């Protein structure tokens, strides 16, 4: 056996498991982990552009599947691989880099069409092809990682810290990089990092091969260039709004910006002008003025209207349902949440609003409207009385002390995606009972909250919103919420008005006049007779009126239970406003397929269930299956009890870690008021603190008494902190909502740190204990842990949809306690 700097150069046996990995190898591991996590986040971004956002779930599970399968592979080829550590590491890192580029470029050529999923039997197969293509790079990345764990098993804490610190840097780094470069250029960075890891290992290995290292570096640079160059263009689904728009004669992209918040395209169409005016009344005196279309990730078309400071061309904005509030108030102070391309601000200017605060999440959109296309748009955000704020709606409302006459929440999503249930799995803190309470809290006496949604038939979102408004009012102590609500409907939009005070007869007279003169249906106002609703845009039944009436009456619970779509109120704990799917409706809709029943199916949810099933099957086939077949070899000399305890321990912590992480990403999303920052900050804080915790675990392991298993201490801390946070955070965090971004990020990191620190310990503790007492089980438990993680990533979301994130957290705590009970028995001193 020849060992130099911890490397095996030509020997056949592995060195003692207590040998520490050399620093350079640790850095290479960090590079691979960083690249792998960056790749995972980047794929979510890339697939949001070329397809739809559901693929986020697929990316998490496909990444974890790669890790699990690599564990199995390393197990089966352990001796052969360990004796060639640096060569295998370098080769796998290089293959990871090359396949990261190739897999994505190939995957976007697979003719998978999410919209045809239920029509075309080939689509699930194409989805599986995409899944397996993306599995390949993660597999190679994980071979590097897994090899390090098995080779330096007794120093799992140290390896874990290199691994997890790299991952932390990767998740934060990719978000920062996406602010600077386009997504495909960021993919080039990932490729280059992987090849750099390969070069580093080759260069510092005992058998130094500078020439080979140079080849890796050049290959990395060439691939990175190729991906970022025109060779690697993004192929957006032809069914996305932007693709369809660009088919129109004369339509062309005139500006494009990219950031982690989205790829924004501005399109002009001189030959077939855009005329976006959702739900415009047939009585409208004129047409919309000239428009430019603005798309985010190829969807959610909104319009930049030509505005030259004259009111008349904006008259059409008085003939859409969202104008109702302006007919009840004289020159109100207005808050526009989700200002986008500026339509709602123009509407406020048209109605001579006293002042307008406009909140928009994406600064690129504001810059395009206000600067790049200022000559066209008339720079509405700079108009007298208008102030624009970059930020998330909920965060702005929590921080502001102002009171408004009118709070407008515009149509922020695309009709097509919304109607097809594509947002079913998207958390939204814009539409929850608590958010409505927050908006109502910012209304001046007699002010209105005005929320406009697309009309779906039979009604879903509009009814859910009405029910949520009723609950929010009740929570605010309003005895009869129906006296404060009104619902105005065109053929494709509906506006819900919630008043801070009861509607007066004068209010109702104005509303009736507004609706009648525009042929809009007034489906609810206090004192409405059933025959007054459903007059202009007639439905077979008066679904909107009847639904709202039921939701405002004593039969609310019964109505929600009997309704075939989920219209139960969305809350901060279950922030899934767009989730309307009900399992019991599925058989009926499938039976109605030939009639055209499928459009009623909220299939975004089903796609994630399919992803879970696919992940489960794939993880069993690729991780547990091979290990089971070769169980005699991998579990030699281990008793059944030890086997079961170890399996229980690593399965439990695999599921629980993901549950806690996902639940806290959600909880901090609200506080950090920005989903992207929340993911980056929370993930970074978790991984960093877990990395440090894992380092500390080595000390804990040696200091532990024989009576209490070392995992009991971190588990007690995790349980205490998690349960404490469930109780504490909702009450305490709003007090800090007005703090600046940096302070809130720092506070979040401080709160997460002790939890992450404790969560970083159970895995390396168990791993090290098992490495000493039953080393043949090490690969097994790696596989089981990976398998559990694959499934739990998707499972956490599905559980949260149905039971809420607190439920997910409680289960995580229970699983950690179970893990402590299953802790692998104290390691015997290793034989010398």
């Amino acid at each position: 056996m020849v060992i130099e700097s911890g490397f095996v150069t030509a020997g056949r046996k592995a060195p003692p498991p207590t040998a520490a990995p050399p620093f350079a190898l640790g850095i290479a591991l960090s590079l691979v982990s960083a690249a792998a996590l960056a790749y995972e986040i980047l794929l979510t971004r890339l697939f949001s552009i070329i397809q739809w956002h559901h693929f986020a779930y697929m990316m998490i599970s496909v990444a974890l599947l790669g890790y699990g399968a690599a564990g199995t592979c390393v197990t089966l080829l352990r001796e052969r691989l360990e004796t060639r550590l640096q060569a295998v590491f370098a080769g796998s890192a290089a293959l990871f880099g090359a396949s990261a580029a190739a897999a994505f470029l190939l995957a976007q050529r697979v003719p998978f069409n999410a919209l045809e999923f239920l029509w075309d039997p080939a689509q699930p197969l194409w989805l599986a092809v995409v899944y397996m293509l993306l599995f390949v790079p993660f597999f190679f990345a994980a071979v590097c990682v897994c090899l390090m764990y098995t080779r330096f098993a007794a120093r799992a804490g140290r390896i874990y810290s290199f691994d997890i610190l790299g991952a932390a840097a990767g998740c934060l780094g990719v978000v920062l990089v996406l602010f600077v470069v386009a997504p495909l250029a960021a993919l080039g960075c990932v490729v280059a990092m992987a090849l750099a890891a390969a070069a580093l290992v080759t260069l510092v290995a005992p058998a130094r091969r500078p020439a080979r290292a140079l080849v890796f570096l050049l290959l990395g640079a060439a691939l990175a260039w190729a991906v970022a160059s025109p060779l690697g263009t993004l192929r957006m689904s032809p069914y996305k709004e932007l693709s369809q728009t660009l088919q129109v004669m004369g339509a062309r992209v005139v500006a494009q910006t990219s950031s982690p918040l989205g790829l924004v395209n501005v399109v002009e169409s001189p030959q077939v002008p855009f005329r976006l005016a959702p739900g415009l009344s047939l009585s409208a005196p004129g047409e919309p003025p000239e428009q430019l279309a603005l798309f985010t990730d190829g969807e959610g078309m909104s319009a930049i209207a030509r505005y030259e400071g004259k009111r008349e061309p904006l008259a059409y904005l008085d003939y859409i349902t969202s104008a109702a509030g302006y007919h009840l108030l004289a020159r109100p102070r207005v808050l526009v949440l989700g200002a986008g391309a500026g339509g709602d601000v123009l509407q406020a200017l048209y109605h001579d609003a006293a002042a307008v605060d406009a909140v928009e999440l994406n600064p690129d959109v504001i810059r395009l409207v206000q600067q790049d296309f200022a000559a066209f748009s008339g720079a509405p955000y700079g108009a007298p009385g208008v102030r624009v704020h970059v930020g998330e709606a909920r965060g702005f409302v929590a921080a502001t002390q102002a009171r408004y006459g009118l709070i407008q929440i515009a149509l922020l999503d695309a009709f097509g995606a919304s109607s097809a249930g594509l947002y079913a799995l998207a958390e939204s803190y814009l539409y929850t009972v608590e958010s409505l309470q927050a908006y109502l809290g910012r209304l001046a006496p007699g002010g209105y909250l005005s929320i406009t949604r697309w009309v779906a038939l039979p009604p879903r979102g509009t009814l859910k919103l009405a029910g949520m408004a009723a609950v929010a009012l009740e929570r605010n102590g309003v005895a009869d919420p129906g006296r404060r609500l009104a619902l105005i409907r065109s053929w494709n939009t509906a506006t819900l008005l919630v008043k801070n005070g009861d509607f007066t007869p004068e209010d109702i007279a104005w509303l009736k006049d507004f609706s009648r003169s525009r042929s809009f249906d007034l489906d609810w106002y206090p004192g409405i007779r059933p025959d007054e609703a459903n007059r202009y845009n007639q439905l077979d039944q008066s679904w909107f009126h009847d639904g709202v009436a039921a939701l405002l009456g004593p039969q609310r619970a019964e109505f929600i239970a009997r309704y075939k779509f989920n219209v139960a109120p969305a809350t901060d704990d279950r922030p899934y406003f767009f989730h309307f799917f009900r399992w019991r409706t599925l058989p009926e809709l499938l039976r109605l397929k030939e009639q055209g029943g499928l459009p009623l199916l909220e299939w975004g949810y089903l796609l994630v269930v399919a992803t879970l099933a696919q992940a489960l099957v794939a993880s069993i086939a690729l991780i547990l299956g091979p290990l089971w077949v070769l169980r005699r070899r991998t579990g030699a000399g281990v008793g059944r009890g030890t086997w079961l305890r170890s399996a229980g321990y690593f399965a439990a912590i695999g599921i629980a870690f993901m549950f806690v992480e996902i639940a806290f990403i959600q909880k901090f999303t609200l506080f950090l008021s920005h989903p992207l920052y929340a993911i980056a900050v929370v993930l970074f804080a978790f991984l960093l603190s877990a990395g440090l915790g894992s380092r500390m675990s080595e000390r804990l392991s040696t200091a532990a008494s024989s009576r209490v298993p070392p995992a009991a201490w971190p588990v007690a801390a995790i349980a205490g902190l998690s349960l404490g946070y469930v109780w504490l955070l909702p009450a305490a965090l709003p007090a800090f909502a007005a703090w600046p971004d940096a302070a809130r990020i720092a506070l979040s990191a401080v709160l997460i740190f002790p939890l992450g620190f404790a969560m970083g310990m159970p895995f390396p503790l168990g791993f090290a204990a098992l490495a000493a007492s039953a080393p043949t089980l090490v690969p097994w438990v790696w596989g089981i842990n990976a398998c559990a993680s694959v499934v739990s990533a998707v499972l956490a979301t599905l559980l949260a949809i149905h039971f809420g994130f607190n439920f997910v957290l409680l289960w995580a705590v229970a699983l950690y306690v179970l893990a402590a009970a299953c802790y692998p028995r104290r390691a015997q001193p290793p034989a010398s």
Partner: protein
Amino acid sequence: MMLGMPGTAPAADDLAAARQRMVREIETTQRDVAEHTGSKTLDPRVLKVMAEVPRHLFVPKQHQAQAYDNRPLPIGHGQTISQPYIVALMTDLLRVSPGERVFEVGTGSGYQAAILAKLAGEIYSVEIIPPLGRQAAEVLARTGYHNVEVKVADGYYGWPEHAPFDAIVVTAAASHVPPPLVRQLKPGGRMVIPVGTSFLTQHLMLVQKEKDGSVTTRQILPVSFVPLTGGH
């Protein structure tokens, strides 16, 4: 329903039989809907025409095997040909008669225009995607639908030279009902707009212009679905 491998030419008899099966499926579906609603029945003339028009000629070669399945199909350029049942329902709602003049916004594959061509007098159709418009015009001319005129143009302002129309069908996505089209609709005329995404028609909107010029709209769910259990 398979007619053969993609790209191979099935026999005329097979095609006619496939069309008959498709029409029978539409009839069965319609009966199911009628059982629920107690009203709707499709115009026999519409079904007769659906049994005659060669839908397979309006879909790309690779999808001809599924041409007579009751499902939407991709036709390229991010566009689709609607599910036959929806085409039948829309045509039925338009209630066109021989000799009448129909305007279509969104020619697409040309199939809807072909169906209308056998029921009405003149069909004027516009398409905003040039290759689609050219291809549809070519197929319609080749298959003998000489009473259809297709042009690549913006449909928002209708086709004033041929207005007014007895019926209008707007198959292109619209954020609102174009007022110029309402103006070009004859009193007593009907306009149908399918609402939804490329592959999924959520509902149909029927705009009716009364004899006195007033306009009403109806939204029709093409499916017998009651959203409340025990609610019917």
